[in-house]
């Protein structure tokens, strides 16, 4: 699965909004944002700076970025917008018609004004010849000052291309997981519940989003979002679809009561694991058989090879060969031995209205 620029944009915007970053401007192709302290700490890799802020108590200065989701279109719009400007025909109305996008014309101006010498950005690849002002002579550029370092620091807006596969996107996902993995939520009953006479019964569920990694010398993964009612012990494999129509809130809503647990969280986890194991048992394991076959073959070759060498009469040398032999066998098992590892991506307690 890969993500389109729109999908990436949606996810990045979700993150920025969830972490209270202040969006300076945005278009379908980009967003310029001043990070919140919380996001800055997660994304900019400045532990010393944040250590300094913490110790001295100064007002933190967070960094700003322009994240570009569709670099190609963004650049070509920038270029298109430059032509009428430099030839003195700069007509905002016309430009909007050209680009077909009213919001985009503004960032383009900013881009051209702040970064005439080309943008050095860590994440961006390609499009190395940004449009410059064709009027300045080659000489002035030749003798000009080269910005040798990426522009960074308060006041500077650094451009970065954020696309599927870019480091920044991976980092955002990791940051999201770090701050969002462990949950304690309630179903939002809506405003009517407040005025209802009877308090609603809420059932606590343990929900775990499992990642199953099946690996040998190759690898395949599966995701399972499972939930177990800690009251009834009912297990669902489709916990995600159970949650998706609901609105969830971190606060205990008014006029509801949570049913007491019939089962500890640990017991629930054990049930989930047992149930997942049963599910996994139904899978096709020919991949593991094939991997073991490969392993057998490799080991046989190694055995034959070293059998000859181990006839070495010299004690010292033979010891060395034995070590090598053991190492090689171990490496091979490490490479091919099939195994399954299960870990949790997110997890938590969900209190849902009893049905």
């Amino acid at each position: 699965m890969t993500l389109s620029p729109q999908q990436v944009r949606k996810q990045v915007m979700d993150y920025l909004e969830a972490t209270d970053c202040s969006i300076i401007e945005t278009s379908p192709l980009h967003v310029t944002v001043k990070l919140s302290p919380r996001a800055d700490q997660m994304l900019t890799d400045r532990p010393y700076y944040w250590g300094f802020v913490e110790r001295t108590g100064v007002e933190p200065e967070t960094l700003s970025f322009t994240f570009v989701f569709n670099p190609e279109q963004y650049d070509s719009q920038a270029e298109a917008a430059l032509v009428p400007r430099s030839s003195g025909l700069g007509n905002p109305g016309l430009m909007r018609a050209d680009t077909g996008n009213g919001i985009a014309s503004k960032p383009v101006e900013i881009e051209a004004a702040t970064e005439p010498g080309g943008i050095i950005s860590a994440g961006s690849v390609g499009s190395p010849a940004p449009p410059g002002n064709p009027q300045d002579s080659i000489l002035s550029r030749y003798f000009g000052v080269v910005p040798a370092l990426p522009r960074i620091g308060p006041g500077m807006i650094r451009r970065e291309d954020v696309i599927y596969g870019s480091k920044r996107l991976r980092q955002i996902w990791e940051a999201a997981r770090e701050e969002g993995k462990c949950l304690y939520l309630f179903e939002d009953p809506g405003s009517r519940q407040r005025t209802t006479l009877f308090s609603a019964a809420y059932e606590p569920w343990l929900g775990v989003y499992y990642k199953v990694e099946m690996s040998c010398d190759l690898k395949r993964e599966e995701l399972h979002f499972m939930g177990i009612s800690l009251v009834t012990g009912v297990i669902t494999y489709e916990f995600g679809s159970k949650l998706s129509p609901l609105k969830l809130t971190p606060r205990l809503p008014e006029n509801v009561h949570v049913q007491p647990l019939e089962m500890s969280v640990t017991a629930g986890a054990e049930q989930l694991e047992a149930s997942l194991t049963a599910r996994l048992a139904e899978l096709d394991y020919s991949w593991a058989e094939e991997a073991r076959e490969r392993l057998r073959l490799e080991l046989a070759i190694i055995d034959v090879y070293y059998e000859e060498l181990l006839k070495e009469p010299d004690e010292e040398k033979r010891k060395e060969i034995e070590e090598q032999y053991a190492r090689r066998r171990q490496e091979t098992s490490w490479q091919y031995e099939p195994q399954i590892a299960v870990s949790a991506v997110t997890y938590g307690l969900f209190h849902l209205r009893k049905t």
Partner: protein
Amino acid sequence: MTQLFRNSLPAGASQPAPVLPVPLSFNRNWLQDLESKLDKGGPWGDWRLSQLAVQGEEAGLVSSFDELQCMKHLSGLSPLPHQIDTAHKVLFQMSGRAILADEVGLGKTIEAGLILKEYLVRGLVSKVLILVPASLVLQWVRELNAKFGISAIAQKKAYSWGNDIVVASLDTAKRDPHKEVLMNNEYDMLIIDEAHKLKNKKSTNYQFVQQLRKKYCLLLTATPVQNDLGELFNLITLLKPGQLGNQGDFATNFVVDKRQPKNEEQLRGELSKLMIRNRRGEGPVNFTKRKVRNIPLTLSEEEKRLYDGVTAFVKEQYQEAGGNLSSMLSLVTLQREVCSSRDAVFITLVNLIKKLPEDSPKRDRMMELLQTIRTVKANTKAEKTLSLIREMNEKVIVFTEYRATQEYLLQYFREGGLQCVTYSGGMNRGKKDWMMDLFRGRAQVMIATEAGGEGINLQFCHHMINFDLPWNPMRVEQRIGRVHRLGQQNDVIIYNLSTQGTIEEHILHLLHEKINMFEMVIGGLDVILEKFEKKESLEKSLYKIMLESQDEEQLRSGLNHIGESLSQLNTRIKKESETII
């Protein structure tokens, strides 16, 4: 946490756990985290972020055992079909242990990057060690970061080894105290560039790599067999001992003589399980042609006088020094510079004079030469170059060996109304990149003194002018390699300027006619030179001939001799590599 349960669930609810045919392990760290937060009452995660993390997992999910995932994680890089095929084969047929033996210029680094990326994406690899020649460390780091988004770092200090993905020089890594650290580590993947340095199994290189603990392993080399088949056997033993039997089996089954294999069919079959060798001219990788135009020029009278003056002076000095070559290098330079520009000669002469004692008799001789320089008003080569450039009216790169010539040409071309940029080895990385961008953008001409090193890729330009020629063929090849590489759409036209009746004419003859180097397949040259230079470097041999020959005739026969042995080596190597792999 302690809780009271009013009644426990019936025990029958949990069925006996089924046994899986594969060891299964549950990571339960999450449960501890959840319980400790329940005890403390938080802090709890944000539901939106949680969903985002899940979407991230879904987007990166490896849903199939046998399908390359890395491509969708790469942007701005479009690997060639043979590179993707190679990655595919290494993963799914070779289980991640392979020799990548493409011919030079087909992108072994890209292939290794793809394979590494794939394993990283699949989460099968996290700890990686990449061992390369010291001069390539930074290039590897840069490429992995820029092209593949892999956070590799260059090993600088002892603590660098702690990083997940480290690029280091093999020579550093195999020495203490580094060796000790590496031996105690386990590497999910080991990549070795220029792996022919491991051909000798008694060498420290070889033993060091053999002892490293590694899961997947890639050996990169353009010349898996340099001298004899035993080298290939050693490489394979490093990767998968026993794959070709033991040394004795291998010798009886596959080797007739050091260089000549037998049962070729079978050997090739066995090798294909371990080694991938893509060749030029095969499949979709087609290099455009190289077209050579030699442009003979006649020196003006003044220039000729200067040339003769310098030549005579250099020879005299050589005889005075009693044929000692090492003390003569600056004079040899002088001799070569006089074929380039008077500016270059001038600077070297002045520097030489400064070093002489006040009363040296040589001083007068050199002052005389300086006077001769004064008489030279025009540069025949530069004039010709300017008119060539105007004629072709396309982007062109002009190579010269000397900074002084570069400065002069810059001045001269600008006066002639051309837009030029310069490029030289002394520039820092940022400036180099900038110059390249300018050249790509609006400048018509790039005047470069440096062709070696990394990162100048000028596929968008297909004219190059050798304003003067290096005497080391590898440097000529590096020059051509800047424009004639993957991605070049047009035939590359190489202009060689040579002034008649000078040493330059002979050198050009040697390079062009004898080794046919301007048109030859890239990559053959280094092998030929390595063999030729077992005794003495080609450059040095040329100097000797130049300095010692009494007349034209002697010079010609000396050069002819070198030419012959080079072309013999060329045919022999070609034949060998065809039979073996």
